[in-house]
């Protein structure tokens, strides 16, 4: 007889034994990760971060969730937090190559290039292969003005044929103020996914950086055609229309209809 069987409960009904719960199969939890990746493809990094966290609430053993969180923190310019978080994740998954790469990226962006390089070495030595490790390596190389960055980024693309990889490479180049190199990569992303608005937006921004105004305008317009509510693209397009000086622009401003 159980110890509390004779206790008088308010309901008066005997306590039902709990059903033996089975942990949800991994397949059911993956959609959170998929949704997070989809948000990344749209440039919604805050939402992606939340979705990665949601995935981890269900299953903390999803390494991709931890890695995704670190990547999102890095992209959201929270490199210090990314470094801290990757360290915590590495306590759970010691020696994981992607987390090491994430920590290297966080450390590099928070100003510690020397240790970042060491961590990147460790990430490449770790078991398995991934595009992200090579992407981080490429970023470190590009930041230190070494020509091997191209090779590293090519390796990243070899590892993952997804268009998100060249797009993220382009974003790295843009962050390092190398828009001409970024353009080469973002064009590839656009070729791979011409029906997605985000690569068009990044391409537009890159062209704008390079002063290719008409090309930038076309890219941003294409982005808005695919997703009319894209505020950033709309704003960039308007600033393109307003910025600079030309006789035609002044004519349109004074006499043209809006």
């Amino acid at each position, binding site marked *: 007889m159980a110890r509390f069987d004779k206790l008088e409960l308010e309901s008066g009904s005997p306590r039902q034994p709990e059903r033996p719960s089975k942990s949800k199969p991994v397949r059911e939890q993956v959609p959170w990760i998929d949704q997070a990746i989809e948000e990344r493809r749209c440039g919604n990094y805050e939402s992606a971060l939340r979705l990665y966290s949601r995935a981890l609430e269900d299953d903390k053993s999803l390494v991709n969730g931890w890695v995704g969180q670190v990547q999102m923190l890095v992209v959201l310019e929270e490199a*210090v937090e990314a470094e801290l*978080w990757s360290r915590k994740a590495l306590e759970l998954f010691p020696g994981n190559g992607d987390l090491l790469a994430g920590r290297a990226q966080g450390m590099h962006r928070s100003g510690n290039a020397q240790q970042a390089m060491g961590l990147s070495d460790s990430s490449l030595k770790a*078991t398995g292969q991934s595009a992200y490790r090579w992407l981080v390596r490429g970023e470190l190389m590009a930041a230190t003005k070494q020509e091997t960055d191209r090779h590293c980024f090519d390796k990243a693309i070899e590892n993952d044929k997804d268009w998100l990889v060249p797009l993220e490479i382009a974003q790295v180049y843009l962050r390092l103020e190398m828009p001409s190199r970024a353009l080469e990569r973002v064009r590839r992303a656009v070729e791979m996914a011409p029906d997605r608005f985000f690569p068009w937006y990044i391409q537009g921004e890159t062209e704008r950086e390079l002063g290719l105004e008409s090309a930038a305008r076309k890219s941003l317009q294409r982005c808005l055609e695919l997703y009319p509510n894209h505020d950033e693209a709309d704003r960039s397009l308007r600033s393109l229309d307003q910025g600079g000086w030309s006789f035609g622009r002044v004519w349109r401003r004074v006499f043209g209809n809006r």
Partner: protein
Amino acid sequence: MAQCTSCQFHNMPGASNCGRCGASMTLAKAAISVHPPRATRWAKFWRKTFLARLWTTFKNRWSDVAEKIHLEPSADLPGMDILVRLIVPGWPQQISGNALFGKCLFGAYFACGLLALVLIGTSFSSFLISAALTIHASSIYDVAHRSTFSRGGRISRFFLGIGIIGFFLYIPLYSRISNYASPFAIQLDRIPFRAGEVLVANRQAYLSSAPQPGDIVTYLMPEAEIAIPGARYVVRGERVDRVLAGPNQKIVWNDGKLTIDGNPSLWLPLNPENMPEKLELFVPNGYYLIFPSTELMDAQRRGRVFSFNVPWEKWSLVPRHNIHGRVYWRSWPPLRMGLIR
């Protein structure tokens, strides 16, 4: 078979950790926060500023250096070999396996000390001496810091070390240095010196040996009264000039040339322009000949300049006890710094 989610290694059923990468196999439902820390808007803004980047670079460089020089305490009591070496900053660190830190301390101390001596008598010198003392104190603190984990113990050992080193090293050192390198400033333009220059004299130079012709010395000028229309001046105080002859010598100054006992002398007063055309003197026993050539040869009163008769004989013969020291270094200004000959 349980597959590791981190490295995909197939582990034996029931394994709590992955046999290859060590990741926890029972992590899925563990009570761990999965929400990462976030930066505030202000933190993000600050990190983009130049100052923040500079600070981060400094912090990272320093952490690299600190890693190399092992700043962590070891809790080993320092032995006698280390305590004795506290006398030189960086020496205890050198022998306790912290060579880089030791070299840095000693190098900084040596550089500050040397520069302070070169610039002695100036405010820069005071600053550099303070820096050197601070470096020495840091070296002592490092030894105290490593010797114990107790905060009180560290503080008491630090102050004990400072007290011992201060009493047995710096107080005697100060009294010696202040005798051998006694700085003084020139108050008025007196050719070849200018107002504001700092000269250094060795006040111990003539304790055991006699002044030699050619030495530039600081001496107490024999007191004399100068009368000009409407005023009387008393000239006295310390002056700087060259010793030209010793006791019992006869000197002749003729048209810019000096002969001593009939022999031409190698030496001239510091400002020969101030000298009269002709002068003959005999130096009595116990006296030295020092022409007051740097002295002002006129006096000003109410905007008018009056020349007066310089009492050369009275001013030029200086008793030995009035010669205070040998002037050998000009420490200020930096462009005129150097030995005085």
